[in-house]
């Protein structure tokens, strides 16, 4: 690992100012919360920053509050705290279980919610020092000719990564918003708009630009009569990324859907919202057949690579199972 300097900051403003200063000096710098993800990137020689800005020393960014019909989650809140929080378990079970499905207990005790949303891809070509892939400034995405068993089937190209976050599909399904602090002040945007497709920019996974830091996640409290479900299929039961993950949130009465949210993880470079399936379900009675059909609609237009066509079938089955569990 290349040597670097660690700077403990006391406020978000200080961190933003430092990021700007280093950018002007043409130095590379990065902000770190739990560090479970960023240190790994450094050890794998994917990134080699001159400065690490430690956000953990900023007081008051680690909280879960319920106020005015919404949950406010501080950027430095650990995944384990979200998983175990009694009110989250009671009112946002889908988020608690998504946080609990991430990584391993050790990582969840260190990793933060903002870090989970800002993860870099876990594509093995991207993470390997032996490959200078498209996303690292190279010419090709090695997935196209290489081993693509864990890669994207929807919304990909020219890069075929999948978004690795477990909490992101659940939060998008819940209609969460994300608060970002930057040189121009604070802004709050829907989380869905936070992620970037590779066709827009294949070197970044989200809209954050130099000097911007995630400070808070805002989750509206679910309407009464709504139910959510998160399920993840993977090779190993812990410390493994999703082959396919599905987050479903359904508002219904007597089995008839008024609003459905279906968001997939592990299949696309961003948390993939199945808008057509959501539209199809509106006003329908949710049963085996309609849930099956929603799964098929959600996977229309999937373009598997040579090794990952199996994800289509798994995704369809999971959506069906998720929807049926959500009424």
């Amino acid at each position, binding site marked *: 690992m290349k040597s670097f300097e660690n700077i403990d900051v006391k406020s978000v403003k200080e961190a933003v100012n430092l990021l700007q200063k280093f950018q002007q000096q043409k130095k590379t710098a990065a902000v770190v919360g739990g560090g479970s993800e960023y240190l790994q990137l450094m050890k794998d020689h994917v990134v080699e920053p001159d400065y690490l800005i430690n956000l953990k020393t900023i007081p008051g960014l680690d909280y879960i509050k319920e106020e005015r019909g919404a949950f406010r989650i501080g950027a430095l809140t650990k995944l384990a705290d979200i998983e175990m929080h009694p009110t989250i378990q009671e009112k946002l079970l889908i988020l608690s279980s998504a946080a609990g499905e991430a990584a391993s207990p050790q990582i969840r005790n260190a990793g933060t919610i903002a870090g989970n949303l800002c993860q870099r891809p876990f594509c093995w070509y991207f993470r390997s020092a032996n490959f200078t892939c498209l996303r690292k400034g190279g010419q090709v995405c090695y997935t196209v000719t290489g081993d693509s068993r864990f890669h994207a089937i929807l919304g990909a190209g020219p890069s075929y990564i999948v978004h690795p976050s477990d909490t992101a599909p659940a939060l998008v399904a819940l209609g969460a918003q994300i608060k970002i602090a930057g040189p121009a002040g604070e802004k709050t945007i829907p989380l869905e708009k936070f992620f970037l497709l590779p066709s827009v920019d294949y070197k970044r996974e989200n809209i954050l630009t130099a000097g911007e830091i995630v400070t808070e996640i805002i989750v509206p409290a679910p309407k009464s009569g709504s139910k959510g479900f998160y399920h993840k299929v993977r090779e190993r039961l812990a410390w493994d990324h999703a*082959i396919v993950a599905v987050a479903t949130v359904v508002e219904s009465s007597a089995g008839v859907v008024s609003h459905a949210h279906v968001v997939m993880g592990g299949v696309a470079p961003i948390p993939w919202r199945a808008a057509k399936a959501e539209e199809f379900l509106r006003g329908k009675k949710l049963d085996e057949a309609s849930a099956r059909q929603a799964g098929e609609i959600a996977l229309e237009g999937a373009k598997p690579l040579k090794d990952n066509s199996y994800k289509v079938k798994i995704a369809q089955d999971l959506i069906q199972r998720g929807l049926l569990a959500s009424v």
Partner: protein
Amino acid sequence: MQITRYVAAHDSGTILNRLTAESQIKGGVVQGIGMAFSEELIIDKVTATPINPNYRDAKVPTHLEAPEVEVIFVENYDPYGVFGGKVVGEPPITAAVATIANAIFNATGKRFKELPMTPDKIVRAVQV
């Protein structure tokens, strides 16, 4: 896929130390589970480069993959072994892989002759 029950019966001659002998069997079974379900060194065919040389992607089993293993020793005296003992060693790994492949055959009707038996291979085999 999840293993619901695992019974390992071994003829290891006279058992000299039951606790360590049972632990050896359990350890071997968990290694076999890794071999059957997830462990693999994956080589990029175009560049002939390993692409998963780390514990995150090479996927050794975790505690959640390890079931409670019931161990049965078929004890008998081996006249050629030290104090009548035979071997515990690595046989549990060999048996585990075949046992799991047979269990998958029993559940799906499909024979898998390539390791590890990952979800992609199983979905493909069952779909056809």
